[in-house]
């Protein structure tokens, strides 16, 4: 007779294999890191550029340049670009991140030769037509109006601004900032940022010599942009502590976001911080979820995270809770942090978290794209694969006492910025 009360035997994950990229260089010096893996005849190519020349008086300069870079070149209109990309079944995405801006293309290999010339044109001869800029400004302002009605958006915005001030990490965008965007600023940003000296290419998918030659052929020649630039560098001193309440009298839920500056991936404590974060609010079984959702039913979801940017790390807890239970939820959150600081975690819970995190790491290496993402995380933090060895070792061996110490060192609610949007 089958005994269903007994769990089957299981093993801790012991082997996690990372695929390290092949390192090459285009003729113009752009480094190319390639994860050549997978069965499908497809590839993702990312052109990644460090954000440069931060100017506080033009907070949307880089954002708008990233957004509009595929909206017209010397040879192609916005529509031509879209028609060609879509015709070949490719996907072209531009992305503005806190530290880098990227242009990525996803395509089937059979269309690579047709798609690369479009990329060449975009990266070399974008002209940022005034008409496209006007449409961008109008539609982004409308979209911002909708976002400003969302409690979680407001909480994110006020939290970021409280800890990062008027840097690009904390940019507190308002409608007027869109109106101030000038075509000339976009062109000058384009010339300063989108150039080979500031570019890294990350490739994932089926990508062999033939494909590399194609890439080199179209993007390995000299580019048009070579203007001087300074890569952004920020320093932060701790931000504004204390409570921020944004009252919305009609709210039926309140958004809560609280946390503080923390360490970056480069810091020796970062992997331990990640274990501590996982325990507190980093997975479905975390203490915050177990208490505030699964026991009290105050929320649909609550979580915490530790984020590593280039010049700063930060920790936060975020949730949306019933407006009537907002104060109780805040009390419970603080209780959970206090518990982490005073009581060592039991071996049983710690083992669960270890196993969960190792399984999660294994599962996050699903395909060529995810291997490339792992490489990027380390590379753009100035680290190599020993970071992951160290991470895995820490997950396996960190002790309850060390976690308690980390909580005392890094999680002090008195130092937190606490934002509540809605009602308290």
């Amino acid at each position, binding site marked *: 007779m089958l005994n*269903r*009360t007994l769990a*089957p035997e*299981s*093993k801790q*994950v012991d082997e996690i*294999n990372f695929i390290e990229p092949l390192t090459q260089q285009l003729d113009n010096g752009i480094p190319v890191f390639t994860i050549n893996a*997978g*069965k*499908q*005849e*497809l590839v993702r190519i990312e052109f990644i550029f460090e954000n440069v020349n931060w100017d506080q008086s033009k907070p949307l300069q880089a954002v708008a340049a990233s957004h509009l870079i595929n909206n017209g070149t010397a040879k192609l209109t*916005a529509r031509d670009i*879209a*028609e060609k*990309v*879509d*015709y070949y*079944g490719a*996907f072209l995405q531009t992305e503005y991140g806190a530290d880098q801006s990227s242009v990525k293309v*996803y395509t*089937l290999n059979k*269309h690579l030769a047709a798609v690369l010339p479009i990329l060449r044109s975009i990266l070399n001869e974008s002209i940022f037509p005034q008409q496209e800029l006007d*449409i961008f400004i*109008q*539609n982004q302002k*409308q*979209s911002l109006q*909708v976002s*400003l*009605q969302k*409690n979680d958006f407001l909480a994110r915005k006020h939290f970021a601004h409280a800890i990062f001030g008027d840097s690009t990490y904390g940019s507190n965008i308002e409608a007027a900032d869109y109106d101030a965007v000038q075509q000339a600023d976009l062109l000058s940003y384009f010339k300063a940022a989108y150039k080979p000296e500031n570019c890294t290419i990350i490739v994932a998918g089926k990508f062999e010599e033939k494909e590399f030659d194609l890439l080199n052929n179209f993007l390995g020649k000299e580019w048009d942009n070579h203007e001087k630039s300074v890569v952004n560098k920020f320093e932060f001193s701790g931000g504004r502590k204390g409570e921020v309440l944004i009252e919305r009298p*009609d709210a*039926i*839920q309140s958004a809560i976001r609280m946390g503080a500056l923390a360490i970056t991936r480069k810091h020796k404590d970062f992997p331990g911080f990640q274990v501590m974060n996982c325990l507190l609010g980093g*997975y*479905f*079984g975390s203490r915050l979820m177990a208490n505030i*959702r*699964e*026991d*009290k*039913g*105050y*929320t*649909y979801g609550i979580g915490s995270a530790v984020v590593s940017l280039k010049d700063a790390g930060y920790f936060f807890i975020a949730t*949306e*809770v*019933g407006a009537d239970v907002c104060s109780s939820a805040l009390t419970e959150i603080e209780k959970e942090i206090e518990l982490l600081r005073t009581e060592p975690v039991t071996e049983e819970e710690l083992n*669960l978290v270890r*196993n*969960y995190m*190792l*399984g*999660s790491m*294994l*599962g996050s290496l*699903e*395909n*060529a794209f995810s291997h490339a993402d792992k490489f990027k995380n380390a590379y753009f933090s100035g680290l190599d694969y020993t970071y992951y060895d160290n991470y895995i070792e820490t997950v396996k061996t960190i002790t309850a006492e060390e976690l308690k110490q980390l909580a005392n060192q890094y999680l002090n609610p008195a130092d937190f910025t606490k934002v509540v949007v809605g009602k308290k």
Partner: protein
Amino acid sequence: MVDFNRFTLANGLRVLVHEDDTTPMAVLNILYDVGARDEEQDKTGFAHLFEHLMFGGSVNIPSYDEPLQRVGGENNAFTSNDITNYYITLPATNLETAFWLESDRMLSLAFSEKSLETQRNVVCEEFKQRYLNQPYGDVWLKLRPLAYKEHPYRWATIGQDLKQIEDAKMDDVKAFFQKHYNPQNAIMVVGGNVKTAEVKALAEKWFEPIPAGERYLRNLPTEPQQKEARQETVTAEVPLNAIYMAFQMPDRVDKDYQVYDLLSDILSQGQSSRLYNSLLKEQQLFSEINAYLTGSIDQGLFIVEGKLVEGVTMEAAEAAIWKELNAIAAEEVTVDELTKVKNKSESIIVFAEMSLLDKAMNLAYYELLGDANLLNTEIHKYHDVTSTRILEVAQRTFVKEQSSILYYLTAQDA
């Protein structure tokens, strides 16, 4: 191409296996053939509430999540108007834990009062977070009852209102389980670094002893052909006026489904699409404009929705949409347009093969539609679409008398 093997257990549970040795992980996906369409009209939102209760402990295992996390696994689930789908990903070496957990909750739940009470609250908070406390969040709560008069698609998966969820009783929960959660109403897909023989042995060990239960025979009303245009106006504290237009279309396995899909792509897929270029870029009437299918298993809806640029009247905006719809119903799309959307469909299908979980979910879904191999033949159906068929479908669909139009106005435009 997604390969699979298939067998059926004595109790009627259908099992599919997709072997993929490029990953160290495994996926176990179980689709239950029950969704919000199977609810009674005074107990809506129940299929979804029930999904939450499936994590509240089963007859022999007090906690579902903890033992899974302990072996490095993760899980989640979703409910739609058609189906309820549960999935686990975990290191393949620990596959048996997934069988243990999933089979026990198919056998029977613990039916804990505490879990019911908590999850009622959690789902009410989900209702607020996603539908009530968001600008435009309640659109589908308004649009569904406008577009459907008979079929239970007239309510949303989350339910008609908070009250019906608050009123859910343990007896309802037990009855729902009896009716829908048994092997005959489920499809299991196991994928990843697994072998079919191993999966078969595990399935026989853990799932075959579960009683077959009764087969649920679905007998839902057909939505009658609409004869008169429907229009409704709502106002809310939102910053922009918006329009939502719904047109009746056939079910998911209809021979023309892919024609509809490509029609929506030509109108709205990507920045080269017709609506984007004409309405957003050239005429600048909308700041967002989209066309898509609801993709439901029974008769679906073809949706066109947009947010208006400030100062544009609803009448002008609607007329401009009609102009585009009438144009595509008047003249065949060009060869390039058709090739473009076919190429895009091919890409989307190939890129979806990058994800083990997506493959497993898709196999289960297509098996429910009739045959998992439909996943692999889908691309041919797209290739077979002609511009003539698109024209015919557009003519049949974009008819005023078959439209349901919702004006969603800002408070100051009311």
